[in-house]
């Protein structure tokens, strides 16, 4: 999961719905595992499979036209529960980047902690991207982490996206927060004793 980030160019999977909550990303009945593996199989479970576990053809993950490392979703993606299982499901399925015009806070942190990059774009960029994907499911998007840019390779539209330089460093180098905190114990003890 700690694959280092640099420049990613990929086709996209479009999910043009708003307020996609973490209960849809991974329903509660799949939260009973005690490891981080296997959640990708149940990503968007109740939109992806019917009650008899047959694939629902109309859902985008079951449409062979769409594939790629980038999930493109409507506004307020990942709202609701704090379950990190949502990030594990997205990473487990093979997505490395989620593009939306707005992310819920806890989901955004959980994604970053699992080396999934949330890219916030403007409403206009998002609308243009959905349109490009609809016209050509094989169109590509380039996400350049060092430059902090995202580019729609069809229209050439490009935007700068925000990420703090600490998290950027973590993603580029495959480092996590616990490594950082553990190296910082003296400061914690000093705070406790003040």
């Amino acid at each position: 999961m700690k694959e280092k980030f640099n420049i990613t160019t990929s086709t996209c999977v479009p999910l043009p719905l708003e307020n996609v909550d973490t209960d849809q990303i991974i329903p509660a009945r799949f939260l009973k595992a005690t490891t981080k593996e296997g959640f990708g199989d149940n990503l968007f479970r109740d939109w992806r499979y019917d009650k008899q576990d047959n694939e629902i053809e109309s859902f985008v993950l079951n449409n062979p036209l769409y594939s790629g490392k980038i999930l493109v979703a409507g506004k307020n993606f990942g709202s609701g529960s704090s379950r990190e299982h949502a990030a594990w499901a997205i990473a487990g399925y093979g997505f490395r980047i989620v593009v939306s015009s707005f992310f819920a806070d806890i989901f955004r942190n959980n994604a970053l902690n699992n080396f999934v990059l949330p890219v916030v774009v403007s409403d206009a960029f998002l609308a243009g991207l959905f349109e490009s994907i609809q016209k050509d499911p094989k169109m590509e998007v380039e996400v350049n982490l060092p430059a902090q840019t995202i580019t729609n390779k069809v229209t050439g539209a490009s935007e700068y996206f925000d990420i703090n330089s600490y998290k950027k460093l973590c993603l580029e180098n495959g480092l996590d927060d616990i490594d950082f905190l553990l190296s910082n114990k003296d400061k914690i003890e000093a705070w406790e004793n003040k």
Partner: protein
Amino acid sequence: MNTLFDKIWDSHVVAKVEDGPTQLYIDRLYCHEVTSPQAFAGLRARGIQVFRPEKVYCMPDHNTPTHDQDKPIEDTISKTQVDTLTKNATDFGLTHFGMMNPKNGIIHVVGPERGLTLPGMTIVCGDSHTSTHGALGTVAFGIGTSEVEMVLSSQCILQSKPKTMRISVEGKLNEGVTAKDVALYIISKVTTGGATGYFVEYAGEAIYSLSMEGRLTLCNLSIEMGARGGIIAPDDAAIEYLRNREYAPKGEEWDKAVAYWKTLKSGVDAVFDKDVLFHAEDIEPMITYGTNPGMGMGITENIPVMESVPEAGRISYAKSLEYMGLEAGQSLLGKKIDYVFLGSCTNGRIEDFRVFASLVKGKKKAADVVAWLVPGSWEVDKQIRREGLDKIFEEAGFALRQPGCSACLAMNDDKVPAGKYAVSTSNRNFEGRQGPGARTLLASPLVAAAAAVTGVITDPRKLM
């Protein structure tokens, strides 16, 4: 600047990472069985211990069945998860209130009721409804499992400081309007993502007129508008609530603590990034009609018509109403319902059971309604019996179940069947939240009670 949130946050800053997050000290970590196993596995993989075990409290709540808790859990996967928490707490030397322990219950009900949640604290848990604890003047917020592992290993978390928002509700609340209605009203106005990036302080006459139980309900729902958390400055009601609670300080320590707690309020010069004002008289009993908690309305109102929804949201809106089997423009009054759920970290406290009892007293449960009454903790259960509310429920045809999260997210057997309508006092009406295909209508204990005795959506004020 100089808000209550700023004061507590700033006093817990251990270090600031350059152009990065803040390293924040955490006073209390609550752990339940669902979001902690992978964090403990992480500690084992790194070969490290819990840094400050005395600051961590563990209890199972999500998977616990609401019957026969003295017997092994039948669902073997649920049992494994609950047993894993017991083992982790034992191995790492943490306090653990297991099933059938009289201190067990939903973690956000137990924390305040045991006096583990105290004003001025920073509190986290791998659970978005950790915002509940803000009602006692704490900076409390939900975190992911990687972050649980951070706190277990270092008692710290790396977080970006959120912006601040004050939501004031001025004036006096109307009859039949509870804290739940206030919350659902606020969320319907702010929208489900409208407070994302903010930490909310609630203020104003109507907020301070709420009991502690009511304030816990309100703060609990802060996350449903995307807020990082919600906080209410502790007043005399908060201090009296904590007096003599098991883990609250005693004697001289109590006096010292109270003196400090009384300083915990936003300065007169406090500046919030956003300031929002609502009027109590505009709020009536609320009910939701859609698939996020922002899709709520006054119980006498009609479901908004499509034209009133911004264009980018119309696909989602239509999908939501289709899932719910409801029409735009429709009134919900008189709509037949199938299930009623009283409970959860939102409305599983003693006051919620009192309110429910006050309405069903002397009436009978509608014959075709299935009602689940699930206390938030064994302590709540004990109090229900002490006050004789159990007798009122029994005479009206209701039975009490055993404590846990239950039908709020249906990780145990309490699942609402596909297509059925549930009036639920819980916190989320997401698709499938109460069971695959289940249709949830969020409401207060009063609206739930009115539906339970009539079998249809009913304005509770008609029965009071």
